[in-house]
């Protein structure tokens, strides 16, 4: 099992964001779906320790998350946030930064290609990219770290249909090319059906359903 969550709860002020969550997320392509405010993005942030739960336990590959060095964990379990947030400079310098942090050799052309961008994007300044291109550059930057798991938070939320379809095709292609697991947060069950083989449906911070697509999204 990729992730196992036991009795995970988290409050933010007055709001119970996650409420005694217990579930398992298998390797492969998993989707976390649910209405906005159901705790999907918060759950994703717990999986690479950008935040910790107030109570409960999370395991990654059978070992408590708290036992991992958070920095090493984040290079292995890479989160691509909903809104693109690249560092100032070129796309290539962003890729280099990520690869150096992970101590990996950088093949910029391959990372860009996997994210659906031409190699010449390496030279482009991030301030001159469209939102869709920025989203792809974020994906390429995450891939530069050669992660084992990609956590994707609403990767197409800011995009039009054409750009969404292109990113989805890229993600399918990624799964085919690399031995990598995806955990995808989406408010759109149809997108979960297109991209994942397993789903977790959250409602108000609780597990409403989980399992195969038929079981979870019925």
């Amino acid at each position: 099992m990729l992730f196992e969550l036991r009795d995970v709860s988290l409050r933010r002020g007055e709001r119970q964001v996650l409420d005694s969550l217990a579930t398992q997320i298998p390797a492969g392509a998993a989707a976390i779906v649910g209405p906005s405010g159901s705790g999907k993005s918060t759950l994703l942030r717990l999986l690479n320790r950008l935040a910790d739960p107030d109570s409960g336990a999370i395991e990654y590959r059978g070992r408590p998350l708290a036992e991992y060095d958070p920095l090493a964990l984040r290079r292995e379990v890479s989160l691509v946030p909903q809104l693109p947030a690249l560092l100032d400079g070129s796309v290539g310098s962003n890729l280099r930064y990520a690869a150096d942090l992970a101590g990996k050799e950088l093949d910029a052309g391959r990372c860009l290609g996997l994210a659906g961008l031409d190699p010449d994007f390496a030279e482009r300044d991030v301030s001159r990219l469209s939102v869709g291109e920025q989203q792809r550059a974020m994906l390429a930057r995450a891939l530069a770290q050669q992660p084992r798991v990609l956590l994707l938070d609403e990767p197409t939320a800011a995009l039009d249909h054409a750009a969404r379809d292109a990113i989805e095709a890229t993600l399918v292609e990624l799964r085919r090319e690399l031995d990598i697991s995806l955990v995808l947060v989406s408010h759109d069950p149809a997108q979960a059906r297109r991209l994942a083989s397993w789903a977790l449906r959250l409602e108000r911070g609780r597990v409403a359903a989980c399992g195969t697509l038929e079981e979870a999204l019925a």
Partner: protein
Amino acid sequence: MSISIHVSLGQVAASLALVALAAAISFWRQTDLERDIVVATVRSIVQLTAIGYAIKLIFEADSLLLVAVLLSAMVVFGALTARSRAKKVPGAFWPLLIALAVAGATTLGLVVALGIFEATPRYLVPVGGMVIGNAMTASAVALNRLGDEVTGSRAAIEATLALGATAREAAAPFVRRALRSGTIALVDSTKTTGLIFFPGTMVGMLLAGAEPTDAVRLQLILLYALLGSVAIATLVATGLAYRNFFTPAQQLREPGG
């Protein structure tokens, strides 16, 4: 540099005519500042008179211990004042206190070690006061900016943390901007000094009857000492304060959390 002039209370009282003018303009143009002008004037009389007597006592006692007590009190009050302008930075008091203390001690230590001033109350008190005051203003500006930068860039900082960057690496661009904004005002005023305005020390010395060349030289020394102390204070304040935004697990703390 032994110059001394006597200023009578009558002369000070006469200068209040200009305060009355300021209050009258405020009243006439309805800027609603009359009350503040009166409060500011009364406070300036009380505070400066009190510090004047305190300095007189310290000069007469010729005690370095008293100098240290006075400057330490200024560091504490400076840190408290600066903290009120850096509300978005959690736990800003300690970084500010350490920054002001380090900036004051290093700058005074250097000017004494380099033989610029003697280690006597007559030099240490006024120079120390200026250094700590300017360090306070600069570090308040720097931390104010740091608070705005970090709260306004949470998504960008988390995106960098998500790559496995340390808090220090993720905060670096914002710390750099904060550092710059704390220092730039003094750099700019140093550039224009003598052209657009006459700095206070020089004006004071000229009024007291000093040679213009002496006035200029002393002013230059103080400007450079201030540049050094402001750089040290903003470096220490931002370098310590950014850590308070993060947990030991290199997570960005929730606002107010």
